[in-house]
C-alpha cells in the first residue's frame, strides 16, 4: 500500500522568505501526486497535482512542486511567502494502477508565516 511521509510537522518562516515543504512517498511504478492546503476551520483545497509529463508542476497562489522519481519525492516550494499562506499543507498520493482515485494523505505540515 502507498504511504506518504511529511517529515516536518511545522515550518516557521518570515514573510517574503522562500519555503520548501517536504514530501516523500513509497515507491510505485505509477503514481499521481497532490498537494492540498487547509486554512483554519475550512476543508482542503487542491493546490497542484502531478499526473504525468513535466516534473515541475505549477499551482495556485504561486506554489510549485517538483516530482523526483529517483528520490520518490514531491516537495512543495514558494519563492516568497505571504502572511496569508499560513495554513496546513497535505501531500497525497494515489496509486496510478488502481484505476480510480483513493488518496493516501501525509500527516500534514503547518506553515507559520510571521512578519
Amino acid at each position: 500500500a502507498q504511504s506518504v511521509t511529511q517529515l516536518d510537522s511545522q515550518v516557521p518562516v518570515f514573510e517574503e522568505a522562500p519555503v520548501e515543504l517536504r514530501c516523500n512517498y513509497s515507491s510505485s511504478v505509477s503514481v499521481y501526486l497532490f498537494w492540498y492546503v487547509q486554512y483554519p476551520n475550512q476543508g482542503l483545497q487542491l493546490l497542484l497535482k502531478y499526473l504525468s509529463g513535466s516534473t515541475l508542476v505549477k499551482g495556485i497562489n504561486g506554489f510549485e512542486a517538483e516530482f523526483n522519481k529517483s528520490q520518490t519525492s514531491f516537495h512543495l516550494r514558494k519563492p516568497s511567502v505571504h502572511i496569508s499562506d499560513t495554513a496546513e499543507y497535505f501531500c497525497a498520493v494515489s496509486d496510478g494502477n488502481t484505476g480510480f482515485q483513493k488518496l493516501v494523505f501525509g500527516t500534514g505540515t503547518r506553515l507559520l508565516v510571521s512578519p
Partner: protein
Amino acid sequence: DAGITQSPRHKVTETGTPVTLRCHQTENHRYMYWYRQDPGHGLRLIHYSYGVKDTDKGEVSDGYSVSRSKTEDFLLTLESATSSQTSVYFCAISNRDIQGYTFGSGTRLTVV
C-alpha cells in the same frame, strides 16, 4: 465548495449513542469518500463509495458504517459513538478522471 455540503457542521453527542453524518453533492460525481482528521495522523480513509449501493472499507472502518442509496448522498453512521471517535470528519467527491478530490467543509464531532 458549493457542490458538496456536509451536515451537521458541529455535533456533540454522548458515548453509546448512534450518530449519522450526511454528505450531499450536486456534481453528479461517482466516487464519494469519508475521512477523519486527527492531529498527528493527517486524514485517514474510513469508507468510500464507487456508485449507488457500492461501498468499501478504508483503513479505519471499525465502528463505522455507510450507505449510499442515491448518487448525491453518502451517509456515515457511528453505530455506538465512543470518545475515540471525537474528530473532524470530511467528505470528498471525485470523478474518474483523476483530477483530485473536492472536499466538504467538515463536521466537528465531539463524543462526551
